[in-house]
């Protein structure tokens, strides 16, 4: 949980909310096809989870959050450029909309989707 204060009191932002923002930013980023389960345990538990939970881990730290993204990327793209862009994009969206500093974004490419055979 991330806490911020304003004049009236405190604002609590739960990881779930951060995940939703991160997920949307990731899926709008070019080359990202979907999010992927981070580990076998998540593969099993995804049946019981809401969609926004899959593939994104949020770690709240004292002065911000760190994120882990697990992605399926389009085959035939320069993976490094895609990963760099999605990391920047997610960091920007989370910081801009929630005002929480993002300390780091780790991108794990879990697989590629081939939609353009050539």
């Amino acid at each position: 949980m991330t806490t911020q204060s304003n004049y009236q009191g405190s604002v609590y932002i739960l990881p779930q909310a951060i995940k939703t923002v991160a997920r949307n930013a990731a899926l709008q980023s070019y080359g990202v096809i979907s999010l992927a389960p981070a580990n076998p345990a998540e593969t099993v538990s995804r049946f019981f989870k809401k969609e926004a939970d899959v593939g994104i881990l949020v770690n709240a730290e004292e002065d911000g959050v760190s994120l882990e993204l697990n992605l399926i990327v389009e085959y035939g793209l320069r993976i490094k450029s895609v990963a760099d862009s999605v990391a920047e994009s997610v960091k920007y969206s989370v910081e801009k909309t929630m005002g929480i500093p993002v300390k780091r974004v780790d991108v794990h490419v879990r697989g590629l989707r081939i939609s353009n055979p050539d």
Partner: protein
Amino acid sequence: MNDIYRTLPDEAERHRLLQSPLNGDGLMLLFEAGLLWLTTNQQYVNSLNVFPVPDGDTGTNMVLTMQAAFAEADQNRSTNVGVTGRHFAQGALMGARGNSGVILSQIWRGFSRALDHYETMDTGLLMRAMQEGRNTAYKGVVRPVEGTILTVMKDMTAAAEKALKENTSLSQMLVAIVAAGDESVKRTPELLPILKQAGVVDSGGMGLFYIFEGMLRMLQGLPLDSSGAVLRPLAELDLSNALEEIEEGQDYEVVIDFAPNGNFNLENYYDRLSDIGTSIQVGEGDGIYRMHIHTALDKRYEPIAYTESIGTVKKIMMENLQEQMNGHAKDENKLPLAAVNPGEVAVVAVSPGEGLSRIFASLGVAAIVQGGQTMNPSVKELVAAFENLPTDKIIILPNNKNIFLAAQNAAKVSAKKIAVIPTRNAPQGFAAMLRLIPDGTLEENEASMLEAINEVHTGEITIATRSVEIEGVEVEKGQVIALYDGKLVSSAATIEGAIDALFQQANLDAIERITFFYGEGITQQQVNKLGDHVREKYPDKDLEIHEGGQPHYQLIIAFE
């Protein structure tokens, strides 16, 4: 220009290569033209970035991607468009930089897939290549955002489809593609609110447009290396750094808003203006054109006369840049005062001279109030200095006995917590500054500084303003007198004599370092001579000489 650019073939050769249907060499010429024109406009595309992600430098990223693509195809030249396209796409993929570069590489990937196994390209194949490029690019994103490079590609493809039905030539199809791209880029702010807020068009879409416009310009035989005459939307005219671009002799900045008469030719306008001055920019918005130019003093009315001849002048702004530059230079001379955070201890120092102020600033003083022997700052000035600092823990160094009272009164008046350290002179102030711990409490700092000011002894050399006898020392008006820790110790005919007498009074055994701060009424040469004299007599002491700039006292001397 970059090494990878060959000399373009001459006009006859170009004409031959660009015959429809296009072969591999002709396609390469088009790719090269796209790269050249994009490179020419690279900085402009970079300037369209509205948010720091995903691309820091869209123009640069697209140019690098195109360069990689062109280099790969250049190494594997073929007269076959399929082979040429495949290598070009391969290069784009490997060299894709940034988000827009990745999308561009996908466009070329689809584009080249359509060309596979074809020897030459006609209008039908170009249209299919555009379609494949569009489809492939859209497959790379789950939730496409419209108002981007994807939208521009889509609209240009639609134009190619329409042109094919109208049975056009290859160059006519490219004209239609470029026109549709232009329209589409202009529409991007309507589709993507963030662009509208920033008042720009999409940078990736703009870059893609330039690539195709470059191809068209090649077909039309237009130059690809000059974008001097570019008309920009008014909002994009950046005149803020105009001052940095000022050239020798171009002293005046003239900005004219005007409405041109019917047949306005931008290139001619630029040409004529470039005879008059430099840093020319022209922008357009709502039918009003704005022209910006730097000219020499004697030519400053020429842009106005010329603009009046081609249209109606609405508004003229003229500014003397040299004056502005001087203003800027003055600002830069400001003292590098310490930045203070709320809650920290800040120091306000009263300083009699510029050199001394600089030293105070370098030691971490947060504010300086001018004042000294006969020019005491008012309580009001001191209070203002306190109130302007973003902290409520402040130390004041009066640096002159005559200012103690004002400092104490100011401390009482201010709502902040103020500690007055009774420094009688600049050296004591410096000694106090060396003890400053901004993170510490006001009390700790005060105690530490009070201790410090007793560890430094001060000598002062000045000229007597009247004849007097004090503490057994007789002084004639106009004589040089020496004070040690504020007490008159000797009078002499020369500064050298006064210094000798002063040094005899000072307990030099415990002293390691002597510092001279020289003020008004003495030249640097004289000071250096005195320095030599002191070094000769006291070779085991370190002597430093600084410009103090204080009035009345030729020398302030610190003994530490």
